[in-house]
């Protein structure tokens, strides 16, 4: 890929625990262009850790190494914490699963959005407020003035996530990392939130990394998909080709899902192979 937005080469994360060291992410490599990339995996696959490592927000006990971790022209591995602070929020934003944990419970949501803007842009409070209101409208919140004044605990799931999106996207970052942004939402609300996210990503031309355990969701929403297992990328393919995935793990994952359109007496149970933990098939060199 020429001029990727993000370039990751041989990312490894080790966790040094009390009794043993866990190799959580093993040699993950990929390029990201102006696209929506889905990273799919089960718990323990390393997908969330990969997302955090890109923003250098890994836990203190984590040892992160990579041959390259480049964001545009910036070398993230070499960047200092001070540089990262400027990058985070302004250039790379993260949307998490539960807005309750990401919003300050003591501050009005509108003010938090305005503040997110003022951190990276020197504007007056009034201007920031206008920007925040405009942002609330762009995430399809019907009554921005009213919602501006409410506190996080008064906000329900879907609206909370849209507020989160507003807050994270107001500085117009070039890269958005969304870690299970809709997992805590109801099925019908999920679609609305994803539509909002899609619209904003299209409009600003940002790149999106969508981390999820839900294959169907990722197939529907993303352009390209990375399938992770035990810290490795097993497969890297266009989303529309997921149905024709090659790797036995991906196939087994697809087969074990109960499907409305394909009734079965028994669901296929995955037989895990040791080879899946060692040799990655597919993925980029």
């Amino acid at each position, binding site marked *: 890929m020429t001029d990727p937005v993000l370039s990751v080469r041989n990312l490894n994360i080790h966790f040094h625990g009390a009794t043993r060291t866990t190799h959580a992410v093993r040699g993950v490599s990929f390029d990201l262009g102006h696209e929506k990339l889905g990273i799919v995996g*089960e*718990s323990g696959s390393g997908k969330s850790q990969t997302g955090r490592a890109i923003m250098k927000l890994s836990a203190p006990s984590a040892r992160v190494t990579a041959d390259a971790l480049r964001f545009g022209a910036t070398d993230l591995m070499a960047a200092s914490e001070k540089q990262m602070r400027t990058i985070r929020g302004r250039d790379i934003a993260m949307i998490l699963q539960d807005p309750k944990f990401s919003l300050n419970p003591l501050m009005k949501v509108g003010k938090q959005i305005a503040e997110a803007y003022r951190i990276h842009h020197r504007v007056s409070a009034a201007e920031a407020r206008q920007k925040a209101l405009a942002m609330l409208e762009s995430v399809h919140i019907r009554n921005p003035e009213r919602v501006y004044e409410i506190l996080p605990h008064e906000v329900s*799931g879907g609206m909370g996530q849209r507020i989160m999106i507003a807050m994270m996207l107001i500085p117009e970052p070039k890269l958005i990392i969304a870690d299970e942004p809709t997992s805590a939402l*109801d*099925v*019908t*609300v*999920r*679609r609305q939130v994803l539509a909002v996210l899609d619209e904003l990503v299209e409009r600003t031309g940002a790149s999106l990394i969508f981390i999820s*355990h839900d*294959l*169907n*969701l990722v*197939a*529907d929403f993303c352009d390209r998909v990375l399938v992770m297992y035990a810290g490795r990328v097993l497969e890297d393919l266009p989303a529309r080709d*997921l*149905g*024709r995935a090659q790797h036995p793990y991906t196939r*087994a*994952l*697809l087969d*074990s*899902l*109960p*499907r*409305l*359109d394909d*009734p*079965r*007496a*028994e*669901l*296929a*149970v*995955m037989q895990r192979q040791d080879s899946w933990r060692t040799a990655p098939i597919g993925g980029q060199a």
Partner: protein
Amino acid sequence: MSDIILEARDLTIEFGEGATAVTAVDGAAFKIRRGESFGLIGESGCGKSTILRAVAGLNPEYDGDLLFDGVELPDTRRREHYRAMQMVFQDPYGSLHPRKMVQSVLAEPVRRMGLGDEQRRIDEVLRNVGLGPEFRFRYPHECSGGQRQRIAIARALIVEPKMLLLDEPTSALDVSVQAEILNLLARLRRELGLSYLMVSHDIAVVAHMCDRVAIMRHGRILEEVGAQDVRAGRVSEDYTRDFLAASAPAITA
């Protein structure tokens, strides 16, 4: 012996008082036949879990009637009621006591209900859920999510219930583990002749596991459909249609 194992008549459950009262369940009614698997599906806050907990006996404050085997269930349940209906909870990480080993978790209901033959029952139930006897001395934090859920199922089965109440039993599990647990539950139902009342927000799971499905919204049961009809989209309510549309699989082979 009647064909209907569990019946709910005009079940209404309210929380809070006066101005802040919330009607969690509003006039719900359903009948579950012996050996049937019945699904309750809806979004968060629709009342499905509230109904389940009331049926189980965890919430004695409800209006309306709940009948088990044709006999009305009293507000304060007795041992025989608890023996007849057991529950499997959603979160495998929260449904087992962190400081008790499996042996203790399984022995307790046996002892409490005075069933005797503890060791044999424990070994048998562990075998039945696909766990080896070495699991007797494990603690929950030494087991994976799927293993914990199997232990939770074992705990429910060890008292030989007639009916299992399943509260989103696989929604906290990985997809691959979910398949194992769903298969296990299906097999157990067949082999032990159990009836299931299953609550879920995942319509694909419910269509797979249940014979009939009731869709709930804002405390009301909107409609009851057979699993075949759900799959074919033969539903009357718009809400159900929306639900199905939002859950449609995107991956085509």
